[in-house]
């Protein structure tokens, strides 16, 4: 019997999580035994404001299928305003990615607080779904790679 579905490609998704909110939120999701896709590989940083857009682009160049930046909600940043800088920077980055025809669905940003374990699981699920959709579209198109 033919198995119609192929083995799904193992996605490489990098998540930059701020230590104080998002990383704690992800940790809460784990402790609460909430299921979320295992494709995400987490890098803990002190603050979303520490994320140099160059890091995101380095991920894409090295073959990442998707990248996530997650930080504290505005007003809750452990360093007062780091996430407010991140907000501007990632907006600009996302616009440029789209302008060059890179699928913006591959780059997500979220505010996840330390108590939002459930939200974390949802954020990752949405990201993985978006990346798979982007992959499917590019495969059916001219076979272009993510980057």
């Amino acid at each position, binding site marked *: 019997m033919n198995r119609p579905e192929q083995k799904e490609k193992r996605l490489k998704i990098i998540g930059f999580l701020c230590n104080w909110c998002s990383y704690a939120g992800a940790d809460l999701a784990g402790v609460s035994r909430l299921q979320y896709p295992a494709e995400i590989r987490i890098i803990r940083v002190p603050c979303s404001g520490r994320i140099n857009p160059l890091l995101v682009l380095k991920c894409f160049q090295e073959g990442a299928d998707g990248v996530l930046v997650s930080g504290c909600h505005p007003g809750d940043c452990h360093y007062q305003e780091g996430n407010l800088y991140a907000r501007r920077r990632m907006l600009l980055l996302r616009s440029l990615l789209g*302008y060059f*025809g890179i699928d913006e669905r591959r780059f997500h940003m979220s505010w996840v607080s330390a108590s939002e374990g459930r939200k974390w699981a949802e954020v990752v699920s949405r990201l993985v779904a978006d990346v798979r959709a982007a992959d499917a579209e590019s495969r059916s198109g001219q076979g272009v790679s993510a980057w």
Partner: protein
Amino acid sequence: MVASGGSPGGRGPGGSPGAGTRAQEALRTSAAGLLAEGKVEAVIGYGLSPAGDVVPRFVRRSQDAAGLLWNDRCTYNLVGYLTDRDLLAGLAGPEGAAGADTAQSPRFAVTVKGCDLKSLVVLLAESQVRREALTVIGLPCGGVVDQEGRLLGKCVACPEEVRNLRTEPGESPANGPPAGEPAAARRLVDLVMGDPVPGDRIAASAPLQAEPFQDVAEIEGMPRAGRRAFWDAHFSRCLRCYACRNVCPLCYCKECVFDQHNPRWVSPAPGIPSNRAFHLIRAYHLAGRCVDCGECERACPVGIPLRLINRKVAQVVKESFGFEAGTSPEARAPIVDFASGDPEEFIE
């Protein structure tokens, strides 16, 4: 073919030889005077090479000021030379180079068109040049041309107040600042060569865009795959010669990210992915800083429409952060700033 743009040595600003000659004469006289009086070590301006090309010229002796040029072929943005310490030290000579922070520090004059002046404003905002060490010579301009004598794309949309160097509200370059205004140190332009230039030539050229960022919108309007193909085709020709970066007055980092090996952010070898990263990152680093002087696009040997990238960034910066580069030496760059109402629809 060495193009003459219609007449040997180019036409005056606004296209008429007469006005050009007057402004050019004023320039030569002013420059000769500044040098003779020892007010500046060198005048950075335009000259004519033996082969008939307009070239950057660094005049150190008063008698050489007669070789300075001002016409519609003077496309270069000379402001970039002001961040080249080696160059300036070489121009200053052994006596001038001593005591960079003293009254004896080297002083230079530089000729600027309106677009060039905006890039100088950014350099001032970023403390890369000392205003007191500069004599800024303004050149009212009616547009500059390419090798075939066609008006450059950036000139078509140039507002009157930029081309005629009206640097303060209500100020006319010929009349000086309004009464009661602070003294010269706050002024952006010290000397203005010639009268304001009419915009007939610009008006007669290709029609203005209906919307300010229409060229960018056209790219945005393409489907994603089309945009990807459009840019990939251009990036496939990119040689990574860095002419765009090196000609840019605002790319002055002593160690550029693209020259860093540890960490290495982008492969130095050309290839569509690495070229795309290079152009994206460079444009990103110019966010809120690029003033659309257009030199990058002019310098590119393989015709990549670089202004379309920088203008996209300018559009985002304007529409999302309400900021425009090159308007004020006190401006705070948008990428090192934030506002409580910053857009966050894209954030979950």
